[in-house]
């Protein structure tokens, strides 16, 4: 027994040492190439940030903090030239919030079905379908939105919502189909795959003993899901929602095609509006030098928000994994 252990120890030492000491020229080349690729990525991120900062420089110098309080976007054709980000930040927050409001309950329903309710033979194919939905290009969602969703929203959904909730100012005005509400709906559809796939993972990570604990005190299937599964997986759900938020905030193409593109702070969801991403996409081709700089500053803001959201989501998701290790 001891001899065997000595042999494996020696073998382990040898194979361990190979990476460092007795490396062949091929190994060295391979290692440096892959290291270069990895560090190149870091460099790229740093460069992108730097370029954005440099590009935004003139705008930052000219407008300073008033860029974040101004609601006017005046290109040189209508002097004085002044740029403010408020309507776009507002539009981004409202559409993303609406997407979460509509998308999260549906996603959780899907995830619960996939992990708790669906018969085993249905789980795998359905999971693939959900993942497939995430692979549909954004512009295709946009096309579908323009030709299918927007008319339906205009003719059926929005009038129906209005007939019930029309007394609320956020549902006032004439439904046009290509508006903030439709943009929120398309975003909700687009974030459903992300949120439901990750929530499903979080539910599957809930130990079976937790479900048994709830069943043993007389909980029904739904009560077990609520008590043992949803509560146990709550930080995982939060991580999934924040990742979805990240996608909703930075999504460009489909929103640009559906939101109606109007630079204003809208009061009703049936108004047309703008997000940071859609405004950049719509304006960079014809922008003058200072306007370009202002657009780049918008881009910088969007990137910072998206990075922040992703980091926070990761924090939540790793905490889930750590909690699991402790209780397992």
């Amino acid at each position, binding site marked *: 027994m001891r001899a065997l252990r000595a042999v494996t120890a020696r073998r382990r030492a040898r194979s361990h040492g190979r990476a460092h000491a007795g490396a062949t020229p091929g190994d060295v080349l391979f290692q440096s190439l892959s290291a270069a690729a990895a560090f190149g990525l870091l460099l790229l991120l740093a460069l992108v940030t730097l370029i954005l900062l440099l590009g935004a420089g003139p705008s930052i110098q000219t407008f300073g903090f008033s860029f974040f309080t101004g609601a006017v976007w005046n290109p040189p054709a209508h002097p004085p030239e002044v740029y403010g980000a408020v309507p776009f930040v507002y539009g981004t927050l409202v559409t993303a919030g609406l997407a979460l409001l509509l998308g999260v309950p549906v996603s959780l329903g899907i995830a619960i079905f996939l992990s708790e309710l669906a018969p*085993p033979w249905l789980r795998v194919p359905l999971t693939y379908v959900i993942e497939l939905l995430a692979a549909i290009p954004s512009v295709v969602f946009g096309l579908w939105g323009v030709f299918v969703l927007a008319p339906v929203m205009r003719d059926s959904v929005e009038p129906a919502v209005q007939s019930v909730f029309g007394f609320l100012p956020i549902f006032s005005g004439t439904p046009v189909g290509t508006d903030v509400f439709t943009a929120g709906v398309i975003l909700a559809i687009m974030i459903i795959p992300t949120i439901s796939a990750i929530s499903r993972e979080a539910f599957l990570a809930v*130990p079976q*003993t*937790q*479900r*048994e*604990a*709830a*069943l*043993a*005190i*007389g*909980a*029904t299937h739904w*009560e077990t899901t609520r*008590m*043992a599964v949803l*509560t*146990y997986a*709550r930080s995982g759900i939060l991580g999934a929602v924040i990742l979805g938020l990240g996608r909703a905030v930075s999504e460009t193409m489909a929103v640009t095609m559906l939101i109606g593109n109007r630079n204003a702070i809208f009061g009703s969801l049936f108004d047309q509006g703008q997000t940071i991403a859609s405004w950049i996409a719509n304006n960079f081709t014809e922008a003058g030098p200072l306007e370009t700089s202002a657009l780049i500053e918008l881009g910088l803001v969007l990137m910072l928000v998206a990075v922040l959201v992703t980091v926070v989501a990761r924090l939540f998701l790793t905490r889930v994994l750590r*909690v699991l290790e402790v*209780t397992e």
Partner: protein
Amino acid sequence: MNVKMQTQHLSAWYGSKKAIEDVTMDIEEHAVTAIIGPSGCGKSTLIRCLDRMHEILPKTRVEGKVLLDGEDIYEQPAVAVRRKVGMVFQKPNPFPTMTIYDNVAAGLKLGGIRDPDELDGRVIRSLKQAVLWDEVQDGTGKSGMSLSGGQQQRLCIARALAVEPEVLLMDEPCSALDPIATAKIEDLIFDLKKDYTVVIVTHNMQQAARVADWTAFMYLGKLIEFGRTRELFEHPREELTEKYITGRFG
């Protein structure tokens, strides 16, 4: 013998694998019945059939009858059965996001009890019955996970007792605990039989000898011998039983 539960020709499957075969035995009221046997003999499956916990896994199947007070539990709603037949599991499994108090109150709230005074009273009584009250009375608002392993298991016993079951099933409740915590649970089991009918699965024969009035010995899914604990250990009728309790296999 005053029979509380009874299995009649009970068989259970996982997929095509038969885990227990044709088990017929009586469970005496206000007594402790132990089920012993080597790993894989079906003792956990048997106890999980007694509160319809076997069927929650996919592709499982049960045949035969399990009577509780003379009525087949497989003809009653599973949720109702599990409120009359509580269960404590191998590894302590408190709800990690809940406080000690909420863990014990969880089953009561499911049963529709909302009155804070009644909840308080029953939570405290259950914690006392599980001999945990003295250790947690200053901090029932703390997380259940802040307790030691043995305390967590007694918390799970309190949670099971709170819904006032008639029978308490324990599936190797001490296998994850140290000897001191085990001794506490064993004392507790001895006290519990005044108010409850207890069935305990254990791989520890000494434990069965210490706590049980009746012992069932299972091997390869079959009930080999069932009798008074003392008789079974001192004068086993079956050769297999004798071999097992004298440590010659298992």
